[in-house]
Every structure is written in structure tokens, then in C-alpha cells.
């Protein structure tokens, strides 16, 4: 039984086809990477799964129940959490309050939410910054904050849009370790990532998108050798 199932999803913006007949299933506990050059439709796919965009065709199901047509907040309450490619912390709030907003989706008790938020802040390694305003954080710290905030909603599947994008090289290993730990803890993840080294290191399975379509779906080493993937990324001249 798949946890998340995407079936024939298409999305057009005027004349541009952002997603064309995308279908795949995610099994519980899987960590799937999504790769593809800019404009391949990766983020659009995330927006559709999380209810921010409405698909023109196709549908998304979580554990058999339709997510298509639900508002983003309802999708989250069903158990799908996400981070944003362009980070969106609540700038004027403290780190703790940011994470509490996520926790309050699962508990009505503010005190309980605060404890839960502190735990998660510790888990992502931001304890020292718990009382700092979100706007004072570095990009790497903001990524951790978004992660903690999304985890606070107790997701069954977590969608990460560019975990290491815009982060300096030294902090990448820590973020990768964090994602690995989450996966080892039993969480199902769908991860968009540009950095091939990172994605092949963490993902069990990779989905390659190009011009809105799935062009390859398989284990990382097979994807790295895939003719169409190399062509999409580097152009025909590089295909051996």
C-alpha cells in the first residue's frame, strides 16, 4: 500500500505546461529525491501535492484519501508538511513561536505546544537561538527552523524543497545528517535537491523531471547513468 500516490497530474500556466501526466507512488518510510533542471516542474508538483495549486488533471491521494481539492491547511492537517524553496519564516516572531505555530496544529494546549517546540528546536540544533527573532537567523539556521516548524505538525510525509540550496558548503553535511536522521526515525520524505552528491547520498530512489514530465524513476546509481537524465542536465553533447 502506498502512502502517497500521485496519478496523472497535469498543470498548465497559459501556454506553458509545468506538469504533464506525472504519476508515482511513495511507500511508507521511503526517501525519494526529485531532481531536474530549472523549470522542470519540481516545485509546481510540490505546490499541487500541498494544495497551493489546483491540478488541471489528475489527483493526489494520501493513504487512499483524496487530497486534491483540499485547501493547503487541510492538506497539512491530513499529514503532509512542507518547507519552501524561498524560505518563509515568520520574520517578526521568535524561533520558539515559529515552531509553536506548527505544534498548535496538533494540540490546543499552548504550554504543551511550547514544550514540543523546544524538543524539536533541540533536535534540529537551534536551541541557542530559541528566543531570537527569525529575521536574525542565517540561511542555514532558517532551513533548520523551517524543518522544525514543519515537523511540529507531525507529518506522515514531509516535502523538502531544496534542503541545501543557498547554504554554504560547510553546513551542508549537518543538514544532510539531519535529513538522514529523520528518515532513520521512520519519516517518509520527498526531497527536491539540486546537489547530485547530496541526493545520491540520501535517497533510495530518485525521480527525474524534465519539461514537466517524469523521464526516469529508479535507484540513484541507475539515474546517474540514465541517458535521458544526462541529456536533460548537460545537453546531448555530453551523452557518451
Amino acid at each position, binding site marked *: 500500500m502506498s502512502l502517497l500516490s500521485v496519478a496523472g497530474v497535469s498543470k498548465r500556466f497559459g501556454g506553458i505546461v509545468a506538469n504533464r501526466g506525472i504519476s508515482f507512488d511513495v511507500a511508507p518510510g521511503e526517501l525519494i529525491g526529485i531532481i531536474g533542471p530549472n523549470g522542470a516542474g519540481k516545485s509546481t508538483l510540490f505546490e499541487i501535492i500541498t494544495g*497551493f495549486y489546483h491540478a488541471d488533471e489528475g489527483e493526489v491521494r494520501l493513504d487512499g484519501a483524496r487530497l486534491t481539492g483540499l*485547501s493547503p491547511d487541510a492538506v*497539512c492537517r491530513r499529514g503532509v508538511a512542507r518547507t519552501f524553496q524561498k524560505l518563509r519564516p*515568520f520574520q517578526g516572531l521568535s524561533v520558539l*513561536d515559529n515552531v509553536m505555530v506548527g505544534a498548535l496544529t496538533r494540540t490546543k494546549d*499552548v504550554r504543551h*505546544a511550547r514544550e514540543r517546540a523546544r524538543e524539536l528546536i533541540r533536535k534540529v540544533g537551534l536551541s541557542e537561538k530559541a528566543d531570537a527573532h527569525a529575521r536574525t537567523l542565517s540561511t542555514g539556521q532558517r532551513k533548520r527552523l523551517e524543518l522544525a*516548524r514543519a515537523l511540529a505538525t507531525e507529518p506522515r510525509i514531509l516535502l523538502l524543497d531544496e534542503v541545501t540550496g543557498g547554504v554554504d558548503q560547510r553546513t551542508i553535511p549537518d543538514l544532510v545528517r539531519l535529513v538522514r536522521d529523520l528518515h532513520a526515525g521512520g519519516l517518509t520524505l520527498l526531497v527536491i535537491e539540486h546537489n547530485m552528491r547530496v541526493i545520491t547520498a540520501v535517497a533510495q530512489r530518485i525521480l527525474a523531471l524534465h519539461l514537466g514530465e517524469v523521464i526516469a524513476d529508479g535507484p540513484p546509481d541507475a539515474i546517474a547513468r540514465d541517458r535521458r537524465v544526462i541529456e536533460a542536465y548537460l545537453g546531448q553533447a555530453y551523452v557518451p
Partner: protein
Amino acid sequence: MSAITPAVVFFAAAGLAPLVVRDAFLLDSLVLILIWGTSAAAWNVAGGYAGQISLGHSAFFGLGAYAAALFGARWELSPWLGLAVGAVVATAIGLVIGYLSNRLRGPYFVLATIAFSQVLLIVGSRWRGFTAGSEGIPVPFRPGFWTLGIADKRVWVWIVVVLAVLAWLVQVYLDRSRRGYQLVAVREDEDAALSLGVPARWLKVAAICVSAALTAACGALWAQYVGFVDPFYVFSVDLSVKFALAAIIGGLGTALGPFLGAALVTTVETYLRAQFGGIGAGLVGIYLIVYGCALIVMVRWVPQGLVGWIGDRLRRRAVARVAP
């Protein structure tokens, strides 16, 4: 010192003042400060906490004022009933404006709220058969609590303090409750809030409705207190700006801020009117210029408002005392 101590001191002082103060002018100022403070606090629920900046809140204030006045003048019913009906009608209109807030964001929402208050101004000033048109409605004075015909200003202070504390408690609830946290998240970034499971749409609508109902209640009490409802005053943009300004000066999204802001704005306005108003004086509108300058100064140098500014000072002093 707990976070609510200053507010408790403020309201206790306001409530006890009539026992000491006998001066009619000071008591009158206190009643008005509390009414404007409560209106600003009501505005703050939508504008400060939920981030739905409205410059049309006079629509709700005017509705409350007209409801109370019409109930008394036209049907000889209790203005308290008028207050309740005004609050219900304002809530209904709040639903419409709340719906708009989900369609229009930022400046477009602000424009829509201004338009709303101006539509009501036209209705109020033209529908002669019902509202007495642009002449306005004198509110009949019928002695008694049920008819709100109260000559003693001290009693007025106590009545208005009750409403003020109610508006303050609504804000304290928002400071501490789950719904408050979620509302602030919507203000900071609506999409991010949605992604975390916050039901942003209906929270905004709820905040605007509560804000509308409280503002209407202020309008009703104000009409009874002043004794005359003029459509060009109660539905004016000036009045909406006054609510917003008091909240911004006091501190957006803080529970006590709107009351401090209103105290400052009302005092300055009264002083300027006394100084430059008068018959034949050419400077009647000078308080508007001062409003404008005050807003610029606040937004530029003290964006966190009086409450935030005073809080910072106290904290710095506490730190300085510990340091050496």
C-alpha cells in the same frame, strides 16, 4: 512584574479616578480616551493581530452609533438593544469584509474598507426618511440606566471602563491562546501559516467580525454619551484613521498599546483644538497635520509603538543596573 501589571494599573486608575476627580472636563476627557482606546483596541484585533489593515472601521462605529440613536429616537427602545443590534449588523458586515480580505490583499483591501465606510456615509446622509439624512439624529435624553440617559460623567467612566476591559481581555486572549498564535502567523506570512495547518481564511474573518462588533459597541455608547449622531463624523475616514493611528502609535498587536495611543492622540487633539480651534480661526484642521507628522515619526523611529519602546527602555535600564 507580570506582563499584564501595567494594564491592570491603567484600568484600575481609570476606574478609580471618578472617586477622586470632580472636574467635568477631566472626566469628559477620560470617557473619550476610553471610548477611543476601546475602538483602537477593536481595530487592533483585525489590524494589529490579524494584519488586516482597515481604514474603514468608522463603518462599524457609525453602525453602532446609528443603531443606538435610532432605537431611542425612532422606536423609544433601549439603546442597549440598539448596541446589541448594531453589533450583530456590524458582525454581518464584518463577514463580507472578511470575505473581501480573502480576495484582496494589502492596499486593495485597505481601499475596499474605505469604500465600504463611504457607501454607508452616503446611505446615512441620503436616506432621509429613515436616518434623518445629513442633519443627523439628536439622541433623546431619557433618564435611567436602561435608557442610558445618564448625566453623571462618573457613571459614564465606569460603563466605558467595562467595555474597555472587555476589549483588552480579547487582546490578552490573543496574546496567549492557540488562536492568537495562529492569527499572528497569518499576519506574518499567510502562505507559510497555511502550510502549517492554520485555517487562515476563517481566522481572518473571525478576527474582523469580533473587531467589527466591538467597534459598533463603542459607537453605540459614544452616541448615547455625546447625544448626537452626525453621518459625516461617524462614517468619516478621519475617524477610521484615528483608530488606526492610536493603535499604531501605542503598538500594533499589543494589548495595552491602543489605550496608550488613544490617550496621547486624544490629549494632543483636545489641546490643539483648544489652542487653534475657535470660531473664525483658520487652523481648525491642524490636528490632521499633526496626525500625519506623528505617523511619520512613529513609523520611521518607533515602529514597535509606545509599548515596545517603553518596554525596551525598561529592559535596558534593568540590564544597566545589573551590569556594573
